[in-house]
């Protein structure tokens, strides 16, 4: 008699192998694995963060020296420290690529809108990780970044002073703020991130990876029974049933089709598939084909990561000096992902106005699935949206570069 766990294991392997996923057609499609790469790097950050946590001291007088002691006295101390610092910069870059790809493919509509919201919350958590992690070493950059951060919080309407008080207990930048930032970075944010990441990945598993935007559903009318299950399952009202009785057949409005494959799942005959002008949707087993492709993407990211950690770190990580309240550094800049908003704030006549504009942009991005609910997905046919996204990306890069130069 076969034991239960053997049978379950065989069932699981069969399920994973026969479960189909979308195959990459070219190098650009490998950007579709940016979410997986981001998650892998995030786990790396968690592991290296644990290593640093064992040696870090959240005391104003000992914080900096504890980071130095880690590098000098412990095996692989410099490696973990560099990995954590450079990983933080890289994970934000990968998450931005992931987010802009979702935006470009309009993969946030319908039942995928919850993924977009959880993804935006995840992005906010990662940016908060970056800000709080920057302060923890209590170096010159950290100390003055905390002063600028507190001043920025004060300009938030209504709750600004409360936020500032919560971080400093009204004492200015001091050991109180360092311990609170440590608590936020090491307890609150990891717990929140773990929960939101779990929700996000669960939603992705339920709703499946989005098909390329030029794909739309197509019915093989010869095999179709006219049951109408495809129309019932379509949340974008892209399938209309024409005819009556046994002659009922579905007609697909390609401009409304979002490529979610709900109709394919519902069809008992399997006569619906995704097609485009360039051919059918390519699919492959999740294991081992999909797993090998994901591993390639993760390894490529790790190659870049470790090249930066071992060989390029002097150009990426600035020489750290302990916090010196008597000396304001001449070239004080935030981390790269805050350079664009920083430059916008410098250009505005008032900090409050600048923060309001940035907040409005963030809220617009957050609530975009509520604004763009359905319609054309093919980027070639979207004459306003795609140029606006590209302009946003270019503007972000220009402001980042400008902030780096100024």
């Amino acid at each position, binding site marked *: 008699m076969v034991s239960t766990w053997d049978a379950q294991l065989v069932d699981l392997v069969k399920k994973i192998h026969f479960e189909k996923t979308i195959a990459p057609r070219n190098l650009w499609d490998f950007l579709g694995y940016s979410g997986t790469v981001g998650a892998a790097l995030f786990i790396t950050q968690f592991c290296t963060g644990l290593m640093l946590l064992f040696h870090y001291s959240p005391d104003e007088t000992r914080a900096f020296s504890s980071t130095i002691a880690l590098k*000098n006295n412990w095996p692989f101390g410099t490696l973990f420290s560099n990995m954590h610092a450079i990983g933080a910069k890289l994970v934000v870059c990968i998450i931005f690529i992931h987010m802009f790809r979702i935006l470009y493919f309009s993969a946030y509509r319908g039942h995928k809108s919850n993924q977009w919201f959880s993804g935006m919350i995840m992005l906010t958590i990662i940016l908060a990780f970056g800000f709080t992690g920057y302060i923890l070493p209590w170096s010159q950059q950290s100390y003055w970044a905390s002063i600028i951060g507190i001043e920025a919080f004060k300009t938030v309407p209504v709750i600004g002073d409360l936020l500032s008080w919560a971080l400093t207990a009204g004492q200015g930048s001091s050991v109180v703020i360092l311990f609170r930032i440590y608590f936020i970075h090491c307890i609150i944010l990891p717990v929140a991130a773990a929960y939101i990441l779990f929700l996000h990945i669960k939603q992705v598993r339920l709703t499946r990876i989005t098909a390329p935007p030029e794909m739309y559903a197509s019915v093989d009318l010869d095999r179709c029974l006219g049951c109408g299950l495809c129309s019932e399952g379509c949340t974008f009202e892209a399938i209309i049933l024409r005819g009556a009785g046994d002659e009922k057949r579905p007609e697909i409005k390609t401009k409304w089709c979002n490529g979610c494959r709900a109709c394919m799942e519902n069809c008992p005959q399997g006569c619906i598939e995704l097609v485009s002008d360039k051919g059918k949707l390519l699919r492959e087993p999740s294991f081992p084909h999909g797993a090998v492709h994901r591993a390639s993407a993760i390894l490529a990211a790790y190659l870049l990561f470790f090249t930066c950690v071992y060989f390029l770190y002097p150009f990426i990580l600035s020489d750290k000096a302990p916090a010196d309240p008597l000396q304001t550094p001449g070239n004080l800049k935030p981390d790269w992902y805050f350079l664009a908003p920083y430059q916008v704030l410098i250009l505005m006549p008032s900090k409050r106005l600048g923060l309001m504009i940035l907040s409005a942009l963030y809220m617009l991005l957050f609530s975009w699935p509520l604004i763009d609910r359905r319609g054309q997905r093919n980027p070639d046919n979207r004459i306003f949206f795609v140029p606006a996204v590209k302009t946003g990306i270019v503007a972000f890069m220009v402001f980042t570069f400008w902030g780096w130069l100024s």
Partner: protein
Amino acid sequence: MRLFFVMILLLGCSVCHADSRLTLLNDNCVRCHLTCERNGKPNSVLLWKKSVHYTSNSGCADCHGGNRYLDLKFNKGHIGLPDKRESEQMCGQCHQYEYEQMAKRNLKGILNGSKCSVSCIDCHGHHNIEPSTVHCINAGNCSRCHSPDHANDLIGTIRLADSKLKSLKKQIQKRIRKRYPAASSIADLEKLNYEFKAVFHEITMKELSKVIRSQTLVSATKLQTAIDDTKPTNWYVQGACVILFLSLCFVLTLYLSKVL
């Protein structure tokens, strides 16, 4: 093509608006004070334009209060021209630690029976504020209160300590370029720099020379010995092994994806 024009537009804007300090020059304070001179004294705005406050975007209202775009009346926060004691509090709004150090120093002086106390503007000036380096201590500034001989002796000690610290910094940077472990040396040097700067605000002139010789120069010698004793690591060999291993794995996955 559209993207190209958008980029050109954004870059073109930066031709005039690259320097956000242009907004400072259009404010109400500058418009009047740029053209008036009082009692033959140098123009404050022109002095401020050469100062470190100008390069760090600190304008008139940051020290003298008021709102430079809207209202300059006294009842809106503009405090006008402060006296010497008020000027210390004005500096202390941003430079809080230095203000506390100076207050301790002046209190110590008063307790020791001294009748005079030095304020921020005595060494750093008021509108033509330069970056704080040891060159603020010069015969011109010091001799206003102290004898030239005493000033020269003190300046010599200070310059010796400063040049020693700069030499240590260059040696450490050279070692970093050669991939020697230098993290603790950097930390020790910065701590030494911090203590060296703190003494100027904390200690009276009488004790300054003695403290620099007994603490700063002795610590600098110990740090020099520590730097000379450091040895290079095998960091690059380790890095090459990791990159090689990852490259092999990557090539393997590419081969598998072709085969499958």
